[in-house]
């Protein structure tokens, strides 16, 4: 059964229900309204981003649904990104951020995970100043505050 998704800028996208339900938000909406042809408005997602999200969900439509594991040890998480996902994430930084926010809003955990791993890969090996520069982040510490944080955490620098 097809489902129509409507973006912030009123673009309509018709997708299979199975694809749309990779988003837990949409899945819950569909369960609440029951059988209906009504389009589903997604006022937080622009058309360019929604197109990318749909592309991801189409490619991963047969993946098993991830079950959250309460005992998940972050140290055991794999940081590998599949080849297709890696190519999918080769976008400019603005689009990368929009995909992450959209995945968070739509509750598509695998896409959110891939987006966050992609950002993590950019952060790796950089100093604090290099990280700020990479993402255009304003340093809101005073020099004294930054020095104190460094002193308090100097023990961790060589671990």
């Amino acid at each position: 059964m097809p489902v129509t998704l409507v973006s912030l800028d009123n673009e309509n996208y018709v997708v299979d229900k199975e694809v749309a339900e990779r988003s837990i938000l949409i899945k819950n909406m569909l369960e609440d309204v029951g059988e209906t042809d009504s389009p589903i408005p997604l006022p937080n997602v622009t058309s360019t981003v929604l197109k990318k999200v749909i592309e991801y969900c189409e490619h991963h439509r047969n993946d098993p649904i991830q079950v959250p594991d309460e005992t998940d040890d972050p140290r055991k998480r794999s940081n590998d990104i599949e080849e297709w996902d890696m190519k999918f994430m080769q976008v400019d930084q603005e689009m990368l951020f929009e995909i992450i926010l959209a995945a968070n809003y739509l509750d598509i955990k695998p896409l959110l995970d891939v987006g966050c791993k992609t950002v993590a890969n950019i952060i790796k090996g950089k100093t604090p100043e290099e990280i700020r520069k990479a993402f255009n982040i304003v340093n809101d510490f005073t020099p004294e505050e930054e020095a104190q944080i460094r002193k308090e955490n100097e023990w961790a620098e060589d671990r």
Partner: protein
Amino acid sequence: MSARPFDIPEILDLIGKSLPYKDQVNCLRVSKAFYGVFISDVWRTISVEPKSRNYVSSNPIYPTGWALERNKEHIQAIEFQGDYPQEYFGLRGCRHLQTLIIRPPTIHLRIDLQATWEKNIFIAFANLTSAHASTVRNVTIDFYMDLMAYPPRELWIALNKCPILNQLHLTTLVVLGEHMSTLLQVCSKAQSLILEFVIIQDWTSESDEIHADHCRLRNVKIIRAADGVGYKGSNSQNQAKIIRRFHNLQSLEYRIKDDSLHSREPGVSATDFIKTLTQDPWLLHKLEDLNIKSAQVQDEIIAGFLDKIRNLKALNVSDTPFGPMSLQALFNENTSTLVTFGPADCQRRRKVWESIATLDLGNCRNVTGDMIQRVLENCSGLTQFLAGKITTIDIARGKDWTCRNMTTMKIYLATERDLHRGKGGDNSECSKQQRIAYSRLATLTKLRVLNLTEGNIPEIGSMKTLDLNLKAGLRMLSMLKELRELMFLRDTYQHMGVAEARWITKSWPHFSSLAGIANARRKTRGAFNAILNSKNIIVKYRT
């Protein structure tokens, strides 16, 4: 959307989980938003240890003083690994402290100093535990030194004050009989207990009771179960008597310390343990997960144990004399249980063997191919299975497999050509048997890991499994859509080529790893590997 991912703490936290520790430390100084998220990652676990010879930095190796006082609220785990500063034992108010670990120093202490030092450290550790009793969930006391440690009463009293204790791990300790009553109370509060080389001394068990109704203990591991000359079986029996009291126990692992180091016969200690544990009345009705790997006890003893367990879900008897009697106990209709389905008056007997999901018969020399076939025919709930040699003849003689939920299977599936190598065996019969084996494998549509040459045969080339080519029957496995890994190490007779490589990449969408020599011809093997590598499938020649 004008927000950025870094504005949402939950997303920043998720990014942090993919970062190595060093990068998390760097993130602290990026901005206040980053600091707010990453400070708890950086301070989560503190390892209190002396500087090693290779540590050249002038920075301290663990926090002290005002830095420790200011940030102690973020600490969730403290591991004492050779340094025992009084400042740490005097910590109070670590609101999120859940895990305490203590391990011995790396320097050797003289015997006369050791007792005093030990008692002081244990009491200080006990005080720290008491002060955080409301939050402490996991305690590890791993005091491996040249001599066994004798924790004082204060330690067990402190542990008994922890109402939400989850896991207790004790290593290389002697527990005095006079402290057993308190220790039993502690164990009954924990959900998980690990006793590694723990000796119970001078215990008269009759007077020590626990309240069975309040007993939360579900999982017990007894590793390097200490026994031998000097203890004369009493430690094995004592440990069994302790375990018998935990009526809600679900999971038990028992592994003896290497018997060959002692003068007692191999298997005597484990036999003592099992006999004491299983004597009447049987009390562990909730036991469903049993691991007695490497216990050198008789098949009859294992059978007697299995006969008691009504709802077995996981069994590891690898490297034991598990054999026909034990298998019979598994399939014994007399040990089936009444289970209610649907309306109250609708009941049926569920066979014990239907409940088993995980079964490890690795390196069980008494397990034959037809026994393995019997398991595959009957254990319909099996998801993970490890066993030894089964031939295509065994499979062809048997019935269809019922274990349709299998996700991991590691066996040595030997072909007839292996049995008649050099004797000119009948190839058409061999091919027919292979196709039957393929058809049985094809029903395991949830399979993720398949090892066809499991076992400890040292000579390379001495194993021969199914012909893994399309003509012989590989094509029949097209429905194994969940397959991730295929292994056939030590089989150098394969003739896989480009066609097989293309078929694999097309038929198995999640396939990621192949371990084995696809073809003895180097050029063909190279072409085969190249196709797999182009789809990010790893090819290995060893585990």
